[in-house]
């Protein structure tokens, strides 16, 4: 039987933990709102972009640009893994990392070499521990990034792809479905396959005049398309992270409540037992005096 004091201390400590988890929950929900707003503001651009890609893809052959061309022998795979910088968000990062590692293992089984581009501290740590080579790591960048980060990442993979360091690039990120649901997703970024883009296939898309030329436009459009995809991945991962942390912290707060209830019960029992014992002493003493 723990002493009264012990139980009291335990209750105080659980209460403090609950305060922390509650605060973290509120911070995460505020950040989630911000991240969602960012996604909302990005959406018109992304939608226009997909539309444009869809229109272009209708009239372009795959040989028209190196970023479109499928390589015949695929030997090196690049995986860009985006996770959060911080933990305490449930299984979110673990799920992402597992997804990436499964993908890497599957590619390795085919005899292909896998290299990692890790974004976010958790991804960097995981890739470092893995048997695969970590080419580039970006840490502490998931708080307040903007499009220039996507640009930097995009330039890096495009350069690696064009110089044939990698023959295929995958993006693994946390798709934000809703506040209660986030899923790790694997998206093949390079080579670009326009028919897999989510553009609504409108019949009879207008025949455009191009300036400077189809090739010229493509060489502007495609690299930026990669960056748009990466930016979307970053935004969604960031929103998912905050949503995951919110529910993790909500669970933690609920667990704290449960613990406090149980501990309070134990405390009351111990107190009652102590009182009963004292009473017994007194009554026993009085009986003995009556003799």
């Amino acid at each position, binding site marked *: 039987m723990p002493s009264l004091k012990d139980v009291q201390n335990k209750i105080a400590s659980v209460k403090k933990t609950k305060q922390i988890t509650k605060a973290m929950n509120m911070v995460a929900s505020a950040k989630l709102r911000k991240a969602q707003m960012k996604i909302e503001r*990005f959406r*018109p*651009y992304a939608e*226009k*972009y997909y539309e444009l890609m869809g229109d272009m893809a209708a009239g372009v052959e795959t040989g028209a640009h190196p970023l479109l061309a499928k390589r015949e022998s695929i030997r090196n795979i690049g995986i860009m893994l985006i996770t959060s910088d911080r933990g305490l968000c449930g299984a979110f990062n673990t799920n992402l990392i597992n997804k990436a590692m499964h993908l890497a293992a599957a590619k390795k089984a085919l005899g292909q070499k896998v290299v990692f581009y890790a974004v976010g501290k958790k991804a960097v740590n995981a890739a470092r521990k893995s048997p695969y080579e970590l080419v580039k790591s970006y840490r502490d960048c998931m708080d307040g990034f903007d*499009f220039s980060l996507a640009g930097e990442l995009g330039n890096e993979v495009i350069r690696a792809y064009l110089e044939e360091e990698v023959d295929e690039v995958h993006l693994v990120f946390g798709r934000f479905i809703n506040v209660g649901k986030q899923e790790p997703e694997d998206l093949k970024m390079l080579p670009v396959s326009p028919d897999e883009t989510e553009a609504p296939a409108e019949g009879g898309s207008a025949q*455009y005049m191009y300036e400077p030329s189809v090739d010229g*436009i493509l060489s502007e459009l495609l690299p*930026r398309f990669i960056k748009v995809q990466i*930016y979307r991945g970053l935004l969604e991962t960031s929103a998912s992270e905050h949503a995951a942390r919110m529910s993790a912290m909500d669970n933690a707060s609920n667990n704290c409540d449960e613990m406090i209830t149980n501990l309070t019960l134990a405390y009351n029992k111990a107190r009652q037992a102590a009182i009963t014992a004292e009473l017994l002493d007194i009554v026993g003493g009085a009986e003995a005096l009556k003799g």
Partner: protein
Amino acid sequence: MADTIKFEVVTPDQLILSEDVDYVGVPGIQGQFGVLSNHIPFLSALAVGSLYYRKDGQVKYLFVSGGFAEVSPDSLTILAESAEKAEDIDLTRAQKAKERAEERVQREKDRIEFAQAQVALRRAIERINLKEKAG
């Protein structure tokens, strides 16, 4: 068909502008071009520079850098990496950026860095010019 066009400017961070306008002058990569309604479907890459549009007899300016213009008979969409209305340009910031870029152009010997610095300088200069013209 109405003789105005639906003019939209979007960047990754936000929708900058969405209005019905009479005329837009766009800095295409091969030179300035004008867009009125009933323009032929047209897709052009953009240069770094200033864009202006006319609405109800008033002319307004925007700074754009990098991206595309998609023209259809009744609309014009600018997909830019960054864009700012003339009144939103921060002149002191642009001037600082210009000084920084100039310094980098002087210093960088590395080719890629040099090109980047030059682009940054162009952006800063265009912003300043536009601000002085319209702001």
